[in-house]
């Protein structure tokens, strides 16, 4: 079991620029079912992807792959023709919000948006438009979603992942990779890993993903990686305290970040004394979460949380 994506997920990619093409190729190498591409103006063409299979991904595949992905002008056409169930968005920032709305309009259940730099007001409107819709948006400005050996949607390096017992959820891309690698090295492995993104307005939050992991029978524990800015970690802490039945470990980045400065991510800023790492760590610890003191200790913190819960 897993959350959000598995070996039945059929993915279409929106935006076949250099990043879209590069990561579509990597996803195919991993074994993800990339069934269509949407690029207005190129409908009717196909794009060929070929190379060496990444044997860390979906098992039992031949050593080489050659796939011709059909390109469509609209998402609706792509869904009708291929039965795609999820989309990954690489469309440049000025047009990315529109791409998300198009994917939702076509009825896709999952839209993973990798694009960094979408205007905040565009995301405010998108969030409003998606309210009450059946579409789940992950991101923007995120590394994507992966279920090891089944489906990789996004830009994470596939080979560091290993199927296992822990769910990963994070606001940061590279820190997700740190956590994943440590869980692979210490043998716990991952059920899924979800990057929710570093923007102040995003589609899916910690609590949404925690709920999914809590309900997933294969997930035995969760590691969440937060950072300064906003109050998503505090809300997660309250939810964990009241609802979570599985052990949780965490790391919060930005203990040394100066107030009032945006630390790379648009959402990583301490404003008016709110959103500090210290407050977030305190809230999580009060909810029984084991908080790692450095990112190198995330795997150990997870082991500790599992041991405390009698699941070591």
């Amino acid at each position: 079991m897993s959350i959000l994506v598995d070996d039945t997920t059929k993915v279409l990619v929106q935006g076949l620029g250099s990043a879209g093409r590069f990561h579509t190729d990597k996803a195919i190498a991993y074994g993800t079912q990339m069934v269509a591409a949407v690029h207005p103006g190129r409908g009717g063409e196909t794009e060929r992807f070929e190379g060496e299979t990444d044997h860390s991904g979906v098992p039992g595949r031949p050593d080489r792959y050659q796939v011709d992905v059909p390109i469509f002008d609209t998402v609706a056409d792509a869904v009708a023709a291929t039965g795609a169930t999820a989309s990954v968005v690489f469309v440049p920032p000025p047009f990315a919000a529109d791409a998300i709305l198009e994917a939702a309009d076509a009825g896709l259940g999952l839209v993973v948006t990798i694009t960094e730099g979408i205007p905040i007001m565009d995301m405010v409107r998108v969030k409003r438009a998606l309210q009450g819709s059946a579409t789940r948006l992950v991101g923007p400005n995120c590394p994507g979603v992966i279920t090891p050996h089944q489906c990789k949607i996004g830009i994470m390096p596939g080979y560091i992942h290993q199927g296992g017992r822990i769910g990963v959820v994070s606001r940061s891309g590279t820190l997700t990779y740190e956590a994943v690698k440590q869980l692979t090295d210490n043998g716990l492995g991952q059920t899924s890993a979800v990057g929710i993104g570093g923007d102040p307005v995003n589609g899916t939050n910690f609590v949404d993903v925690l709920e999914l992991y809590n309900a997933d029978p294969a997930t035995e524990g969760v590691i969440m990686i937060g950072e300064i800015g906003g109050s998503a970690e505090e809300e997660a802490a309250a939810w964990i305290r009241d609802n979570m039945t599985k052990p949780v470990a965490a790391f919060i980045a930005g203990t040394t970040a100066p107030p009032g400065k945006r630390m790379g991510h648009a959402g990583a800023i301490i404003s008016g004394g709110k959103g500090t790492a210290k407050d977030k760590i305190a809230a999580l610890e009060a909810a029984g979460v084991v908080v790692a003191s450095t990112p190198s200790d995330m795997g150990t913190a997870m082991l500790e949380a599992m041991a405390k819960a009698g699941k070591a």
Partner: protein
Amino acid sequence: MKIHEYQAKELMKARGIAVPVGRVATTPEEAVAAVRPVVDAGGHPVVVVKSQIHAGGRGKGRFQEHPDVAGVNVVTDGLKGGVEAAEARVRQLAETMLGSTLVTVQTGSEGKQVNRLYIEQGIDIARELYVSVVLDRATGRNVVMASTEGGMEIEEVAATSPELILRETIDPALGLADFQARRLAYGLGLEGDAFKNGVRFLKALSAAAVDLDTDMVEINPLVVTKQGAVMALDGKMSFDNNALFRHPDVVAMRDLSEENPAEVEASKFGLSFIKLDGSVGCLVNGAGLAMATMDTIKQVGGEPANFLDVGGGATEENVTAAFTIITRDPNVKGIFVNIFGGIMKCDTIANGVIAAVKQVGLKVPLVVRLEGTNVELGKKILSESGLNLIAADDMKDGAKKIVELAR
């Protein structure tokens, strides 16, 4: 991106938001020349001379060179001596203020040089209020915050008397509805003409925040005049950098002299860089990892000299630029390169570091930790380069090594 008060008022005026009459000046002559038109337009011989810097607390701030002069000065000489007397006093103030260093609670002890003044009409203030439009991240919507406690820091009001802060969330499909604007105006105790003007002000301000893609717009104080006008006596605006591509008029207002030169240079190379006070330079990919690298350096007893995220799509050239910017800081006693390659490939980082060392030399210890995409290739390139660097097994190991070496 931040702009000056006078620029914010220009943008507001163009969108039907009431602001006092004013003119900007960069020389004493321009300041003096501004007095008569401001007095004529305002119909009142009192003018205010305001320092223009990207930091708050100017009214209570003082100049390093002239500890008895404030950052904002009300000139009342015109009441008795007419416009000539006002002009003489403005000249004296402008000569003192321009080129001097203003220290406020927000500038730090080093202060900021004042290069521009804003000469503004004096206002007959009846009441001072507060209003701002900011993003509420919990709802993913803009919210209008208003308070009767004008002139105070809103964080202070929030801490001591949160019930005095009124809030209305803006539905992005509708904008601030009339009833919401009225509710705020009633809550602020506005009556008669001031009520009507207040509603108009709040609606126009909310619309401007959306049109202009502001991160934050704060009017503190928002004043009610004795004549019932409602206007922005101060105006602070900052913008969503992601949306600047659709606001060339706002981009043109950027004042590079207000920003850290190293941060400006870094931004040209697509690097996210923030200068800090420590001695360990950091070159990292990914914002979260870059922050966590600083935290780990601190954890093992060091102090980071900077935050630096080279980004996912960085080229060798970007990495070289990053390295050059870090080494230019004389406080840097050691450099920690910490990479977990995802999109970023470790060989790109390795080649960039080597190119940078060839260009600018390496006078301080260098610790490199590589992991992720093409890690073996990256390590091979570095070990064959003959560079005098120390390899680290993981992030904490690397942090310990560089902190030890940079001591």
